[in-house]
């Protein structure tokens, strides 16, 4: 989806606001949202791509206005209902439906401590998939404009770059976010000259690296 989340290259977002000595969380509820989001992943009812897409479908005004954890909270509520872990009424009222069975949480405190290694993304796949490209090869990012989730930013579409390295095989977000299969394929680090992306104004030597799936690329 060509949306406000795909903001690489925009110039009107104002100055960067830096907070000195910023705390990890600004309010306790932020920490609870983070923890709930991480803990509910362990039900495997959705994946990180689907969770990301919940932010992307927010109206642009909300996307710009809501804080990060407000967006996460909105996305969590959405997925809980959409993926059947809770009903809309339960999420609205904060109370289990009458007669709802109590289940057992898959994530326990001992799995988290001392550090939550178990909350990994798990997006890499140990599969033999032929890479379509190799390091050093010239490629061009496809000009695709899917209405669903994609990790190919608009600013790179149609641009020519060079394969920097092959990262191995990963699930494909464009299908995975919509529960349409993992479609595992190679992901490459692709180098784009800043001038290719932004024109002659850009400094000659500067460059931007993007990680790109096989399905985002054509030979150049």
């Amino acid at each position, binding site marked *: 989806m060509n949306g406000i*989340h795909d*903001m*690489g290259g*925009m*110039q009107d*977002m*104002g*100055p*960067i*606001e*830096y*907070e*000195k000595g*910023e*705390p*990890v*969380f600004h*309010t*306790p*509820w932020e*920490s*609870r949202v*983070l*923890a*709930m989001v*991480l803990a*509910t992943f362990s*039900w495997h009812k959705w994946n990180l791509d689907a969770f*990301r897409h919940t932010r992307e479908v927010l109206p642009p005004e909300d996307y710009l206005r809501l804080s*990060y954890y407000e967006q996460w*909270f909105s996305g969590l509520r959405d997925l809980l209902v959409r993926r059947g872990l*809770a009903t809309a009424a339960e*999420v609205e009222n*904060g*109370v*289990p439906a009458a007669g*709802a069975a*109590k*289940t*057992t*949480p898959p994530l*326990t*405190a001992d799995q*988290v*401590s*001392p*550090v939550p290694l178990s909350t*990994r*993304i798990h*997006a*890499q796949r140990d599969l033999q998939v032929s890479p379509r490209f190799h390091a050093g090869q010239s490629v061009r990012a496809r000009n695709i404009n899917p209405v669903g989730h994609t*990790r190919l*930013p608009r600013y790179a579409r149609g641009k020519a770059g060079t394969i920097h390295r092959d990262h191995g095989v*990963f699930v494909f977000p464009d299908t995975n976010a919509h529960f349409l299969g993992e479609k595992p394929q190679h992901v490459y680090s692709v180098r784009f000259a800043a001038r290719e992306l932004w024109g002659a104004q850009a400094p000659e030597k*500067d*460059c931007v*690296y*993007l*990680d790109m*799936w096989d399905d985002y690329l054509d030979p150049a």
Partner: protein
Amino acid sequence: MTPDLAPAHEHEHEHQAVPSEPALRVKALESLLVEKGLVDRAALDALVDAYEHKIGPRNGARVVARAWVDPAYKARLLADANDAMADFGFISRQGDRILVVENTPTVHNLIVCTLCSCYPWAVLGLPPVWYKSAPYRSRAVIDPRGVLREFGLELGDDVQVRVWDSTAELRYLVLPERPAGTEALSEEDLAALVTRDAMVGVAKVVFPPPKGNDERHS
């Protein structure tokens, strides 16, 4: 939030007579999830505690300091960051993939995620608000030198800027340059110099460290 769930910040908010609307809604959802058996409250507490107190830029700083003092470690780190970081125990060799990119006198690296807010949690903790904000995400790729100038870092024309847009499940960490004058410092003392901002690429590591630098929160 009951005090026992969020001890670190509760004092900031105890004078707030009426809990904020999001606080109430979040609390309601947590109650629901706990009552339905979807989450374990102790697991939530452990997660909050981990990100509030255990996982932060100190992890990355230790890695950087070791790379500075041990060339063999540095080579391992650049070749296979997960393997090298597993020495410290805060990352798994099979965990999410981390890549370390090295700053030199002629190369400056900068990390961003234009599409959302991907960030190397395992070694830097949770990202600061500015990293997740629209101004940083939008301009880091089109005008990295302007962004760095906002952070007080002016780079010469002889320096190549490499921006890493974290569009997939790879997480990037900048290995900053070791500042001059630190030859006599221990690995531990060096680690204390390394800031989050330097490991994102919006600052350099400076020695001696500036007074009142409270960037680091853990």
